[in-house]
């Protein structure tokens, strides 16, 4: 658990971070969002003391970070740097091994851990272990950057624009991958980003910052349903808020177990026997946003939900609309 209280950083006359307080529970993902220069990166960098705070306290698992020896503190916190920052003179394996080596793990344990992480991030250890960062694509470098931060199994992971500077397809893929890994390991994450979509996709809660202050903090859906007047409203973007709310929910939440008459599963697709049309079914991992899009496209009142080749239920349009509707 991370507890931040009254955190303030002044550089001369300017106040970069102004009386910021928040808590992050174990296994939770908090996103700090805002425009450039809003103080989100400075806040993050005070948590592992790359910058020392002017005022305020930070406690990680109950310990005041100013009381922990600097190197010990940093060894226990994973950090994904903006712009990746891999060491160009070290191989991928050596980069990932940075913190374990500093912690003096034995060789066999380090090798095993490096291999495990490369596999976790879908990089073949035999192919990528001995490559140098310059030989990797942007997406591969970002993967290695995240793997390096997670190498010594830190309970806390700080990420500064971790998936920036990537094309949208690669970024979405990496976000999915990271989300799955984070859920599995239960790592506590604080993520800095200026990309609202990334925040909604990865974070449990979002803190919107402007001019060094947290304007609003809360669960993602709260920010969409009840955004504060002014900057938050503008930054969160309310034009497509119904769709964004839908994207926070999975189809499994509202699927009805009863089957609609006249559907038949055939070769992975569902055939509507009355019209003879093939309907691409929904999968349990789909969000309601995807369901809404497909309902509109098919012009249907409901869509089939198929799991492992079996028709397990239906998602009805009226239920989707109800989730996205204002309270």
């Amino acid at each position, binding site marked *: 658990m991370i507890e931040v209280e009254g955190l303030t950083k002044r550089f001369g006359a300017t106040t970069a971070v102004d009386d910021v307080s928040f808590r992050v529970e174990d296994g939770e993902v908090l996103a700090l969002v805002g425009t450039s220069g809003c103080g989100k990166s400075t806040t993050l960098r005070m948590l592992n003391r790359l910058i020392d705070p002017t005022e305020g306290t930070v406690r990680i698992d109950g310990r005041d970070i100013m009381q922990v020896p600097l190197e010990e503190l940093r060894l226990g916190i994973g950090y994904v740097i903006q712009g*990746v920052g891999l060491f160009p003179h070290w191989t991928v394996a050596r980069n990932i091994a940075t913190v374990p080596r500093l912690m003096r793990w034995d060789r066999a344990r380090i090798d095993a851990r490096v291999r495990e992480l490369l596999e976790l991030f879908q990089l073949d250890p035999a192919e990528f272990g001995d490559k140098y*960062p310059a030989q990797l694509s942007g997406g591969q470098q970002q993967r290695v950057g995240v793997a390096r931060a997670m190498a010594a199994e830190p309970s806390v992971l700080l990420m500064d624009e971790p998936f920036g500077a990537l094309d949208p397809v690669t970024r979405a893929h990496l976000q999915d991958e990271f989300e799955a890994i984070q859920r599995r390991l239960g790592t506590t994450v604080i993520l800095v980003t200026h990309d609202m979509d990334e925040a909604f996709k990865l974070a449990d809660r979002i803190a919107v910052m402007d001019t060094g202050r947290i304007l609003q903090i809360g669960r993602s859906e709260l920010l969409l349903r009840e955004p504060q007047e002014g900057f938050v409203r503008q930054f969160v973007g309310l034009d497509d808020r119904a769709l964004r709310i839908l994207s926070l929910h999975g189809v499994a939440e509202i699927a009805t177990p009863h089957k609609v008459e006249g559907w038949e599963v055939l070769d992975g697709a569902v055939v509507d026997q009355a019209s003879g049309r093939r309907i691409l079914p929904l999968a349990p991992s789909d969000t309601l946003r995807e369901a809404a899009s497909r309902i509109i496209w098919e012009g249907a009142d409901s869509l089939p939900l198929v799991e492992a080749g079996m028709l397990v239920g239906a998602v009805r349009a009226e239920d989707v609309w109800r989730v996205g509707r204002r309270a």
Partner: protein
Amino acid sequence: MSAGAAAAPFRGIEGAALVFAVPAVAGLMALPFLTVRPNRIVSGDPLYLWEAAGGLAVAALLAAALVPLISGPALRGGLSVAGVALALFLVGREADARLAEAGDLARISLGGGFWLMVASFALAAAEGLSRLEPPPLLRLGLTALMAAAFGTALVSGWFDGLSIMQEYRANAGAFRSAFWGHLLLVGGSLLPALAIGLPLGRACFASPRWRRAAIPILNILQTTPSIAMFGLLMVPLAALVAAVPDLRRLGVAGVGATPALIALTLYSLLPIVTNTVAGFAAIPAQSREAGRAMGMTRRGLLIQVELPLAAPIILTGVRIVVVQNIGLAAIAALIGGGGFGTLIFRGMGQTAMDLVLLGTLPIVALAIVATIVLDAVIDLLKGRRR
């Protein structure tokens, strides 16, 4: 240079090469290849390359005319290396032949034609081979191979007919001590220069105030003429030894190796400091921040991240210093500092050009070898990380 031109060496003519080939051939015709003197004192008769016996001399002339015109760098470079070897072969054979005719007192000296042939082929070889961009280990291997071939010819007595080798036999002891003295001057100034220059460079990188204070001073040191530097050092050193006589037992003196080592060290500081500053400045800020954020200590960050990343640029400074000091160390002989300069200045005093050459050629060879080796080391360090 396109791959097509490399595959078909005679397809095109290197325009620039003509500028070199024409005067080289004219020079080879007009300048003596060797000079034959009945004894050490009198002036001699020229022996031209076209007077030399056998078809090889004609081949050498033709090669000097044609090889630079080949547009394929591999063939041009390779044949140019062969051209240097041919010049060395001819000079040894002709010297032995003339010595047999003219008697044991005769002196066979290297002439302008020989130097022209070696220089033009060596330039063409360096140019052609460097276009191939051979990997560093191959460069080191080729250098070792050529050095070994030349060394074998030298030891086997191939050049013994030449006056420079007669001069060597007469001065073998002095040559050996000059060699070690020279290495001592170069190595003995490099170590203190690194010990001072690296921390100073790091400080100058971190603090603009240090930079503003140190760089102008080092600039002034660098531009001080070497004779003036020796003079400036002799007085305080002599005074120091007078004040603390025990220092004399350590070899400190107003003249000799001490002021020479100090002067060479001072001359080394500017390149090492400025390259250290540049090396540290070239470290990506993200690498430094990543190292800090992962919990490296300042020392760990310096050793594991900063120095390895700055090393290629710092070593470029070391290469500049080593090559510069190999040349500068010759002056040390003026104040009794030893090194190959002793042979050069003695030769100048006796107007014995062969003795001057005996001091000069090893300096040139050392500088070339140092450049090739250090360049290869720098490229090896850069490795695959580019």
